[in-house]
C-alpha cells in the first residue's frame, strides 16, 4: 500500500505519531502477516509510557518527547 508498485525494502523508516521508527515488513514465513506489530524498540527509543487498565479495558500511550517539545514551544 505505502510502496505502491515499488519493491518493498527490507528495512525502512516510517513516522508514527511524529516519531521515526525503523520498520521491517512482516517476514514471509511468519504467522502475523496481517498484523502491524509495535515493538519494544519504539517504546524504548521514544521513552513512551504504556498503561493498561484492566477495569475499563482501555490502554494509553504517553509520549514523553512530545510533551517536552510542546512545553518548549509554549515557552518560546
Amino acid at each position: 500500500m505505502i510502496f505502491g508498485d515499488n519493491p518493498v525494502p527490507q528495512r525502512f523508516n516510517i513516522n508514527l505519531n511524529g516519531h521515526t521508527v525503523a520498520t521491517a515488513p512482516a517476514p514471509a514465513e511468519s504467522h502475523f502477516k496481517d498484523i502491524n506489530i509495535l515493538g519494544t524498540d519504539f517504546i524504548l527509543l521514544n521513552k513512551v509510557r504504556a498503561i493498561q487498565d484492566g477495569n475499563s479495558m482501555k490502554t494509553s500511550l504517553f509520549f514523553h518527547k512530545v510533551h517536552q517539545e510542546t512545553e518548549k514551544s509554549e515557552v518560546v
Partner: protein
Amino acid sequence: MFRPATFRVLLSPSRSSCFKHIRTSGFKHIRGPLTLQSRALSCQRYQTGPIDSDPADDWNAFDVLIPDLDYPKLNGEVSKQLGHQYLSRVPNVPEILKPKREVHGIMYGRNCRILYTLITTYENRSYYVHWLYDCGSPFTYLSYEVSLNP
C-alpha cells in the same frame, strides 16, 4: 509368554552435545530485558547456530502466533472500537497530523490484545493504522496489507 518391555538407549557421539545445546538455549531465553550492552555480552557468551537462532538479534527470524487477530477483524470490529477505519487516509490538516501527547487504545478480545491507532506516515502519505503492541517483540513490523498491496 509375557516379556517385559525393554528400552534401548541409542548412544550416539553427538548425544551429549545435543543435551548441552538444549540446556544452554533454555538458559539463554530466560534473561532480563535486552539492552545494547547485554545483547553484546550475550553474543560473546552464547554462540548461536542455525538451529538456535536468537530472535532478539535477527529481525527476520522473529515469529509469534496471533490467531485471534486478522485483517477482517482489524477492518471491522477493531476499527469500530478504535474509532478510525483501518488503513484510511488521514486528511492533510495540520491539526490532525500534529503529534499527540496521549494516544488511547483498547484491550481487545479474550486475550486482551493491546491495540492503538497511530497516524502512520511514509513520504507525505498518512494513514490510520491499527498497531498491536507486543512487548515480546523487539522490532516493529508492518503487515502485508500496509506494505505490499498496491
